[in-house]
């Protein structure tokens, strides 16, 4: 993984830059000591590591603005960081950059039940928001699996999803407003407690922009009434095709389950060995279908889905009859990543999304690729929305295995794009999928995206080296000269 070459001039001014930051922040809000910097050297994509110049931990919007303005004036790159749970390297530091951590902005500012929203600082965890409104019967819907640790600011940066986003939407569908600090320290407010934006939907643009456009210092999210009940079906199928067919039939029947998750044989076996969830071991795939809402509706839909599953050839069909049983169905799925972590030193979690009907084909081709690269693969999917999480098992201490795993992952994502899907459904491009962007987008597509970046950050100081495979200069992107949709610039840094 190549990152932009560190600016030697900036590295030479390290002491000066730290002094300038010291003038803006109290001592406990600035990390410069090499040992203390260590925990910040990576996020959850821990195969890539880099210690930054410093980590700034501002306590409020004014301090965030001061730090950004200072870095902007000094030409120093900035990498924003929430809880560091990104799976795509979105918070990977730069050797010549300052990490701005939002962990100290960790207060919920307002709970507004009449308007069904919560105003919060970005460092509050995803689950923290739901917990704060739980007693009143509300929750915040998007539930990424890292929700006990990941922060709402990070969720906005990555447009995080989760198991329930099939029915309740991604972060972008659940955020109403934000306060954002631009790289030059300018503070703007986008949206509010109302539903529609007044001008361009910059909040929608900011959501999922991976920290390249601005630093979020306050977020207003919509909260929903908690569903009264939830019940789940645990279905087993003799083939992946039959499981995929069952998913298609449920959707075609007009049913939108709260969650619909699939696991293949290797994943089933890994979790059974780990948590003994009681999954059938003689099937090729299992499907967990959760239905939530008023009891009458849930009971009605359980009946419909049971029948659909039988028609689709389910060989195992269990219905949860208690909350305890429902949680047991989920226990295996929720521990899938650590279960796989037990059987291999390292794994890459891929994140492509595909049209649902191509699932059997994509599974077959992934099996062939596993043979080719001689690496084990376990699959868990958000089946309802076609979001795959193939887990590639390898040993990162073996350089050859690491290389094969990277190439295997890239090939899987190429297959996703080829069948009409996309590189990443919810984890973000970051550094992980950056060099594959050309599989999905032309140079002209990427140039337009980078022009939008230039509108926010003309100097390219905010989180550079992420998302875009080629760093264009804004002045050159602004020139109006294009032939056939391609912009050849051999002199630019490509990673």
């Amino acid at each position, binding site marked *: 993984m190549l990152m932009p070459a560190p600016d030697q001039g900036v590295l030479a001014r390290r002491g000066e830059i730290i002094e300038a930051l010291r003038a803006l922040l109290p001592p406990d809000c600035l990390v410069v000591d090499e040992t203390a910097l260590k925990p910040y050297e990576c996020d959850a994509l821990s195969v890539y590591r880099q210690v930054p110049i410093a980590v700034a931990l501002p306590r409020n919007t004014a301090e965030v603005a001061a730090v950004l303005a200072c870095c902007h004036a000094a030409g120093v790159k900035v990498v924003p960081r929430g809880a560091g749970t990104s799976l795509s390297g979105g918070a990977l530091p730069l050797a010549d950059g300052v990490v701005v951590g939002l962990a100290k902005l960790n207060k919920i500012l307002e709970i*507004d039940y*009449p*308007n*069904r929203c919560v105003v919060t600082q970005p460092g509050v965890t995803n689950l923290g928001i739901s917990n704060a409104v739980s007693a009143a*019967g509300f929750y915040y819907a998007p539930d990424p699996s890292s929700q006990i640790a990941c922060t709402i600011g990070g969720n906005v940066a990555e447009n995080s999803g989760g198991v329930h986003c099939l029915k309740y939407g991604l972060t*972008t569908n659940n955020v109403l*407003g934000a306060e954002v600090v631009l790289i030059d320290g*300018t503070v*703007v*407010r*986008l949206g*509010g*407690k*109302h*539903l*529609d*934006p*007044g*001008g361009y*939907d*910059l909040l*929608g*643009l900011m*959501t*999922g922009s991976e920290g390249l456009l601005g630093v979020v210092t306050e977020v207003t999210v919509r909260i929903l*009434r908690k569903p009264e009940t939830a019940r789940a079906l645990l279905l087993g199928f003799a083939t992946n095709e039959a499981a995929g067919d069952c998913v298609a039939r449920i959707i*075609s029947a*007009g*049913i939108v389950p709260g969650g619909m998750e699939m696991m293949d044989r290797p994943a089933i076996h890994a979790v059974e060995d780990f948590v003994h969830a009681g999954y059938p071991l003689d099937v090729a795939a299992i499907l967990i279908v959760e239905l939530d*809402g*008023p009891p*009458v*509706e849930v009971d*009605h*839909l359980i009946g419909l889905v049971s029948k659909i599953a039988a028609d689709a050839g389910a060989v195992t069909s269990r219905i949860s009859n208690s909350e305890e049983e429902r949680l047991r169905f989920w226990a295996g799925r929720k521990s899938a990543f650590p279960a796989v972590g037990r059987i291999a030193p390292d794994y890459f979690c891929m994140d492509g*999304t*595909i*049209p*649902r009907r191509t699932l059997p084909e994509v599974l077959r081709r992934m099996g062939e690729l596993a043979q080719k690269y001689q690496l084990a693969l376990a699959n868990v999917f958000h089946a309802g*929305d076609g979001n795959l999480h193939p887990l590639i098992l390898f040993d990162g201490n073996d350089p050859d295995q690491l290389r094969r795993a990277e190439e295997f992952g890239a090939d899987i994502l190429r297959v996703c794009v080829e069948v009409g*899907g*996309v590189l*990443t*459904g*919810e984890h973000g*491009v970051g550094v992980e*999928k950056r060099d594959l*962007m050309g599989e*999905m987008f*032309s140079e*002209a*597509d990427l*140039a*337009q*995206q980078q*022009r*939008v970046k230039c509108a*926010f950050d003309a100097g390219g100081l905010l989180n550079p080296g992420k998302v875009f495979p080629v760093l264009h200069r804004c002045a050159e992107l602004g020139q*109006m000269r*294009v032939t056939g949709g391609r912009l050849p610039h051999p002199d630019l840094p490509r990673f």
Partner: protein
Amino acid sequence: MDLAPADRQELEAALADALDRRAPVEVMSGGSKRALGRPIQVERRLSLEKLAGIGLYEPEELVLTAGPATKLAAIERSLAEHRQQLAFEPPDLGPLYGEAPASGTLAGAISCNLGGPRRLASGAARDHFLGFQAVSGRGESFKAGGRVVKNVTGYDLMKLMAGSYGTLAIMTELTIRTVPAPEKTRTVLVFGLEDGRAIEALTAALHSPNEVNGAAHLPANVAKDSAVSYVGGAGTSVTALRIEGFGPSVEARCQRLRDLLARFGALEELHGMNSGKLWQSLRDAAPLASRPELIVWRLSVAAAASPTLLARIRAGGPALAWYDWGGGLVWLGLPPGESDGGAARVRAALPETGGHATLMRAPASIRAAIPVFQPRPPALAALEARVKASFDPVGILNPGRM
């Protein structure tokens, strides 16, 4: 002189020519909402009428791709054949502007990002817009997004295009999400509530677990003209709550909602046909379409703040207004005569918590003289101008409309 490119190449050529001559164009898809926004002074109109038709519709994948000028009515007919619909309930605003009904197009609906009553529960056009192909104001073709819902690959330019009123790029193909149509629809009505009490009733319903997806309040002077007899003949204000879904669930939820709302006032229940008529009329702002002389505003605010907002506006003179989205949306008709269309007092009445007022319908002279869209603070306005320039640096697409 009008331009009507027949494909993307012709569109690129038309824009290249416009760029060479620095001659801006007015971009028009169906033209049903042409009178929405600041009037545009240009020599040429660029019509997308030839870029129409559904290219792909896969009901089992809940996805549809179509040309920009595809009529929404045609899309809705295709969806209905597969018992599907558009979740964002796009309004048919043609009649509001004196145009024919059912003349709206897909690109028009997306570009204005207007959502109907279901906006409250299911989002606006922006939330169902998955991908597009377009030619920017630089004359360059580009695409963004894809055909799947879960997609964070690159910036979400769909959000930016939705609600950009054709000022950034001209879309040549759009991909949207479709959803299953509900098996059953019912509406619970509560009679005789004054505004503040009505918003309390809507809030109580929205805080209940009954999955209400339409929540409106019609003061008596709006309700009286409804074509739905239970509403038009009520002789008082009408508060309406919509429940949709599978049959047994809708029946059970309606009953629980009635139990919950009994303490507010007398109740009635509308079944499928009447429900459909009522919500369609609110979606299309029908009470204002039938009064072409009124100046029309659309206010998006925090739901609980809207009765105070409307009381402030009414203190300055008569108003025809109703609430949708549980109070989060106010449609407002003001008598003509004020030189600014009431802009100063309407915007001064907006709550401290924010929100915005859009001048939806007014004579061109008023729309040219005052900001149609809510003025933004300078830093935000500057950022928006830079974003516009990143797509259309010379300003050849719908100059001044926003």
